[in-house]
């Protein structure tokens, strides 16, 4: 079986051809940027204020330390988002008339928090809710900033979970109910395990997006990376800290995106047909 089939030989020729074409077109584009951008009339000034090596080196460790706060906010928000969105999604799928208020609340919640920009939610909750308490310990912007993120993102993620639940075929429910399982047993043992498997990829996308939006919490106070970059920018009178912050974000989001794509492709391969070019 060492002999290559006609198809394999053809595919190898095609791969070689694609590789050469991709290499040439990439060289042309990158070459054009490298040659043309520095020829723009004010390139020198932009280079000095955005790509200053010294400012970068000075600011980078401080930004990295500030980024730790972003990581923390992200880390405690994710399980909360998962729990809340699961609860909302399951509430929306209940059928008992007694639970109508719960269903209605879930619908209103998703409509409202999906419709309001994340940053507005952060402002309204971050500045509004602490006013309800006398004690200063409840005015920590980290708590309310995180709460706003959780509320915003759970609205999206709950819709993803709901789509996953509805994607499980009705016949699965029929099979479970015909065994005598109650509707909640059916949900927890038959429907949810299948639904959650399907929604891992879209959920990964939401997490990548959350990872960036954590920076918005800085707008109500905490000194995380975006805020620190702003301070450094003012001190150095130079925009390079923003570029440095962007580099740090990319170092995290790009690997996350790749993992999400990998999961998405694997799921597609598992459930779908041959890819059509």
């Amino acid at each position: 079986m060492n002999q290559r089939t006609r198809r394999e030989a053809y595919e190898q020729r095609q791969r070689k051809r694609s590789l050469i074409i991709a290499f040439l077109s990439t060289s042309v584009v990158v070459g054009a940027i490298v040659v043309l951008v520095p020829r723009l009339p004010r390139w020198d000034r932009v280079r000095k204020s955005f790509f200053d090596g010294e400012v970068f080196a000075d600011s980078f460790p401080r930004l990295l330390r500030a980024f730790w706060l972003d990581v923390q906010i992200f880390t405690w928000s994710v399980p909360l988002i998962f729990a809340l969105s699961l609860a909302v999604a399951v509430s929306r799928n209940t059928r008992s008339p007694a639970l109508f208020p719960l269903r209605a609340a879930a619908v209103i919640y998703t409509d409202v928090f999906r419709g309001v920009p994340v940053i507005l939610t952060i402002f309204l909750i971050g500045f509004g809710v602490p006013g309800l308490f006398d004690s200063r310990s409840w005015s920590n912007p980290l708590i309310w900033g995180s709460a706003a993120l959780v509320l915003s993102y759970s609205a999206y993620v709950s819709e993803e979970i709901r789509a996953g639940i509805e994607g499980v075929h009705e016949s699965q429910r029929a099979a479970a109910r015909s065994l005598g399982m109650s509707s909640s047993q059916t949900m927890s043992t038959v429907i949810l395990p299948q639904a959650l498997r399907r929604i891992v990829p879209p959920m990964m996308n939401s997490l990548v997006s959350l990872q960036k939006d954590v920076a918005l919490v800085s707008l109500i106070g905490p000194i995380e990376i975006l805020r620190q970059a702003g301070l450094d920018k003012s001190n150095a009178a130079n925009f390079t800290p923003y570029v440095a912050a962007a580099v740090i974000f990319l170092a995290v989001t790009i690997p996350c995106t790749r993992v999400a794509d990998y999961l998405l492709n694997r799921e597609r391969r598992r459930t779908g047909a041959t890819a059509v070019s």
Partner: protein
Amino acid sequence: MSNTTHHPAKLSLRGVRKAFGTNTVLDGIDLNVAEGEVITLIGASGSGKSTLLRCANLLEPLDDGEILFDGVDIAEPGLDPDPIRRRIGMVFQSFNLFPHMSVTKNVAIGPRKVLGTDKATARAAAVEMLTRLGLGDRADAYPDQLSGGQQQRVAIARSLAMNPEVMLLDEITSALDPELVGEVLDVVRDLKADGMTMLFATHEMAFCREISDRVCFLHQGRILEHGPPEQIFGDPQEPRTREFLQRVIDAGRL
């Protein structure tokens, strides 16, 4: 419709009506199933066979009529269907196995969740049931790794694991390749030998003739004709029944 036996009916449908919108699917069904009796439902697609079975398992609410199970009306609106369903087994045309569970877990999950059987006991009983249906060596496989015939046998095992008093079989061989039909029908044959009460919708006329105590011909939501298989297949009275059987013969299925 009177019983052919003297036993009281195990399952009894009286004036059952069901419509989807303006489309009347069951138009006054009367049917008694005695304990240990095997009744097959035949008729064209859309004649109401599947809906009748789904109604009998309360998967579809009735519009009118009653279903007596051991003399108790189970179709009463508002009744909790779960305790009734666990006494009635159902097998579906497209198997409906749980794809995320191993075959053994598929069979054990009913007793575990519904009857509260402990995990080890339920597992052992599941493996025993699978072995009885000739699937002992596939106990750890997942449904997608099995042939259609094997999947359908697992579905039957899943249903039998609950020790049902009545089995409802909904065109259980219609989704199978012809060479796989036999292995599933063998299981039904064994069930009959064990005295299981069965209500069986099917297109397999030869098998229907062999296994039925009584055959019901459904047409437009009514039982047009019923009787022992010799009568229905040998000397059908209704022109519709004759027409249907002629079409089946022309299609080479009898």
